C-alpha cells in the first residue's frame, strides 16, 4: 500500500480574504469609494471637514489668547498677530457667566444647591445608582424648599408677623398632625393625606420664613447660568405634573366643566407666543393686583414659563394617552381598579413611555426659551454675556462670548437628548415599533 491518499485528510488552511474584500479596506471601498463619483465626493467632503476642523482648532487653541486683561490683548491690531478665541475674557467673566450679580462671597450657596440637585437626580435617573427610594421623595418634598432657603435666605411671611398668625398656624399644624395620625389609625387615606398635607404646608412655611438663618439675597441678584438653570428646572419640574393633569382633565369627558377649563387653558396659552406671556406677566399682572401686592420679577417669569410649557406638555401627554388602545382602559376597569389606580398603574406608564422623545423635546425647547426672559430685564446666561461685551474693557469680544454660551447650551441640550435615548432603550419592554 502506498502512503499516498487520494483524499485529503486535512483541510487546506483558510487563507485570509484578499485585502479589498474584508476589513477596513472593504469598508472604505463599500462605503466611501464604491464608484468614481462617490470617491470624488468623499475626497471633497473630507477635505472640507479637515479644513473646518483645522480652522476650529486653530481658532480655539492655537491662536487663542488664554490670559487677557482687556480687549487690547485680544485684538489683532494691538497684539500684532491674528487672534482667535479670547478665553481670557471668559476667564475674567466666568463667575458672572455662572452666577450673574450674585454676591461673590455667597457663591457657595448656589454651588451647594447644584451639588444637591445632581446628587439627588443621579439615583432617580440611573437605576444602577442605589438610593432611588430615598432620593425621589427627598427631591420632591424637601429639595425645592431647601434650595429656595439656600439661594434666597429667609422669606418675609406677613402671616407670621403677628402673634395671632403664629398661634393659628401652630394650632393648624398640631391639628393637621393629629388628623393625619387619626386617619392613619383608621385606615382612612383621605384624612391622612389632608392632615399631613396641612402640617407639611405649614412646616414648609415656617422653614421658608426661617430660611436656614442665612442672609437674604434678593432675586434681582440672580443671573447667569444659575438663573437659566433655575428657570428651566422650575419650568420642567412644574410643567410635567401640571401637563399630565391638564391632559387628563382634557380627556375627562364625564366632567365637562373641568374639561372646558383645561381645553380653554391649553388652547389659550398655546395660541400666544412666550414673549407675550412674559410681557403680560411683567406689565399686566401688576394692573390686576391690588396696590402693594407685588410679585417678584423672577417669580412672574417663572410662572409665565411654567404655564407656557405646561400647555405644550399637556398636548404631548395627551398624544401618548391617545396611543393607548381602548382595551387597556377596559382591562383596567375589569380588574376593578379605580380611576387613579388605573391611570397610575396601567395607562400613564405606557403613555408616558411612548412620548418620551416629545417630552424631552419640550424640555429642550423650554431650556432654550429661557433666553427670552432677557427681554424683561432678567440676566440669564445669554444676557450676562451680552452685558459683558458692553464693558469698556471687553468691547468686541462677542465671537468668543457667543461661542462659549453656545457651547454651554449645546452640552446641556445634547445631554438631555442622550438621556432620553437611554431612557427609551431602558423602557423598551413592550410593543416594538
Amino acid at each position, binding site marked *: 500500500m502506498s502512503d499516498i491518499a487520494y483524499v485529503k485528510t486535512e483541510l487546506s488552511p483558510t487563507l485570509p480574504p484578499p485585502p479589498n474584500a474584508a476589513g477596513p479596506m472593504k469598508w472604505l471601498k463599500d462605503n466611501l469609494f464604491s464608484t468614481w463619483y462617490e470617491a470624488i465626493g468623499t475626497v471633497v467632503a473630507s477635505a472640507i471637514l479637515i479644513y473646518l476642523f483645522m480652522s476650529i482648532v486653530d481658532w480655539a487653541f492655537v491662536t487663542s489668547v488664554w490670559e487677557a486683561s482687556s480687549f487690547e490683548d485680544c485684538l*489683532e491690531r494691538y497684539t500684532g498677530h491674528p487672534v482667535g478665541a479670547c478665553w481670557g475674557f471668559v476667564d475674567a467673566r466666568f463667575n458672572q457667566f455662572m452666577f450673574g450679580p450674585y454676591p461673590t462671597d455667597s457663591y457657595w450657596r448656589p454651588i451647594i444647591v447644584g451639588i444637591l440637585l445632581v446628587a439627588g437626580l443621579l439615583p432617580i435617573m440611573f437605576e444602577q445608582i442605589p438610593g432611588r427610594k430615598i432620593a425621589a421623595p427627598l427631591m420632591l418634598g424637601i429639595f425645592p424648599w431647601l434650595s429656595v432657603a439656600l439661594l434666597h435666605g429667609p422669606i418675609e411671611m406677613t402671616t407670621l408677623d403677628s402673634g395671632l398668625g403664629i398661634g393659628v398656624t401652630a394650632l393648624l399644624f398640631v391639628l393637621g398632625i393629629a388628623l393625619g395620625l387619626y386617619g392613619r389609625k383608621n385606615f382612612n387615606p383621605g384624612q391622612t393625606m389632608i392632615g399631613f398635607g396641612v402640617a407639611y404646608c405649614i412646616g414648609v412655611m415656617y422653614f421658608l420664613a426661617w430660611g436656614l438663618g442665612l442672609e437674604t439675597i434678593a432675586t434681582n441678584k440672580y443671573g447667569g447660568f444659575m438663573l437659566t438653570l433655575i428657570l428651566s428646572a422650575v419650568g420642567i419640574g412644574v410643567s410635567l405634573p401640571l401637563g399630565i393633569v391638564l391632559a387628563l382633565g382634557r380627556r375627562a369627558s364625564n366632567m365637562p366643566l373641568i374639561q372646558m377649563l383645561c381645553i380653554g387653558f391649553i388652547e389659550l396659552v398655546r395660541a400666544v407666543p412666550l414673549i407675550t406671556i412674559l410681557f403680560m406677566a411683567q406689565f399686566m399682572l401688576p394692573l390686576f393686583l391690588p396696590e402693594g401686592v407685588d410679585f417678584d420679577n423672577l417669580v412672574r417669569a417663572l410662572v409665565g414659563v411654567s404655564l407656557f410649557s405646561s400647555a405644550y406638555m399637556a398636548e404631548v401627554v395627551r398624544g401618548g394617552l391617545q396611543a393607548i388602545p381602548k382595551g387597556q382602559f377596559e382591562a383596567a376597569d375589569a380588574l376593578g381598579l379605580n380611576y387613579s389606580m388605573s391611570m397610575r398603574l396601567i395607562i400613564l406608564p405606557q403613555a408616558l413611555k411612548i412620548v418620551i422623545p416629545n417630552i424631552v423635546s419640550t424640555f429642550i425647547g423650554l431650556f432654550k426659551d429661557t433666553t427670552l426672559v432677557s*427681554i424683561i*430685564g432678567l*440676566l440669564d446666561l445669554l444676557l450676562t454675556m451680552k452685558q459683558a461685551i458692553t464693558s469698556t474693557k471687553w468691547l468686541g469680544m462677542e465671537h468668543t462670548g457667543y461661542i462659549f454660551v453656545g457651547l454651554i447650551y449645546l452640552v446641556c441640550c445634547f445631554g438631555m437628548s442622550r438621556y432620553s435615548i437611554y431612557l427609551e432603550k431602558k423602557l423598551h419592554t413592550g410593543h416594538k415599533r
Partner: protein
Amino acid sequence: MNFKHLLAAGAAVAFSASVAQAGTLDDVKAKGYIDCGVTTGLAGFASPDDQGNWAGFDVDFCRAMAAAVLGDASKVKYTPTTGKTRFTALASGEVDVLARNTTWTFSRDTDLGFEFVGVNYYDGQGFMVKKDLGVKSALELDGASVCIQTGTTTELNLADYFRANNMSFTPIVIEDNAEARQNYESGACDVYTTDRSGLAATRVVLSDPDAHVVLPEIVSKEPLGPLVRHGDNQWGDIARWTLNALITAEELGVTQGNIGEMASSNNPEIRRLVGAEGDLGAMIGLDAEWAMRAVAAGGNYSEIYERNIGPNTPLQLARGVNALWTQGGILYSPPFR
C-alpha cells in the same frame, strides 16, 4: 350699602396709593437705598465690571444721588431695564429714578407722565464710513447701504434726513452693535449709523479704526438724561439739583480731591454748594452737605466724564457740545442761590 362700602374702600386704596407715591424721599430713606434703573449694558454708560460692580456714566449719577440722599454712594440697587421695560419700571415705582441714556422727548415728558431732570449727555445720531470711500459729508451718501438698528428712533431719523435731502438709501437691518460691526466691517453696508457714543464704542474695536471716519453731520438731537415720575416734585428737585451740583462743581473747579477744603473757600457760591453757607439742602429736604457728598462720591461732571467715556477711555469721546458753556459747549447749570 355693600356697593357703597366697596366704593369707599376703592377710593381709600386709590388715595393711599397716591399718598404712597408722593413721598419718594421718605420711602428711600426708610428702605435705605435708591432703586436706580439702568441699561442692561451700554459701553461707557452702565455695565458691570469684572467683579460685578456697576460702573459707567449713568451709574455715577445714581451713586451721586445715593451719596446726596443717604450719605453713602454704594446704597444703590441697580435694576437693569431694557428699552421695553424701562418706562413701566419707573411708572410702577419699581425704580425711583431712571438713569438709562433715555432721550428727552415731548411725549415721554408729558404723555408718559415723567419728569426729565436735565441732560447729562448731549448725544446725536451720526454716520461712520470707511475713509477710502472719500466721503466728506453725509450729503454725499446718496444710494448708500446703511446698517441700522431696527425699531429705534435712529431708523426714523435716518429716513427723515435722507428724504429731506432728496437722497435714497438701502437699509441693512441689524439687531445690535456687535452685529452692526460684523456687517460694516465685512462690507455688507457702506455706512453705520447710530448715536455717536455708540459709533465710538463700535469704532474702537474695528480692526483698523483709523481707516474709518465719523462724518461731521449730526442728524438728530438726543439729549440723554435721568428722569423721575410725575407727582413728586421734591424727589424731582433732588435729582435735578444733584445733576446741577455735579455740573456746577466742575464750573467752580470743585473736584473730588479738593472738596474737603472747599468749606473754607472765599467764593460764596462754592460755600453755598458745599453747605458752608445758606440752607439750600433744607429746601429739598436734605441736610446742608448733600451736594458735597454728591461730588465727593465720584467727582464733578468732568471727572465722571473723563473716567467713563472721555478721551482716555476706550470710547475716546471728546467733550464737544458736552463741554461747559464757558468752554464752548452747552452744559449750563442754574446758579446755586
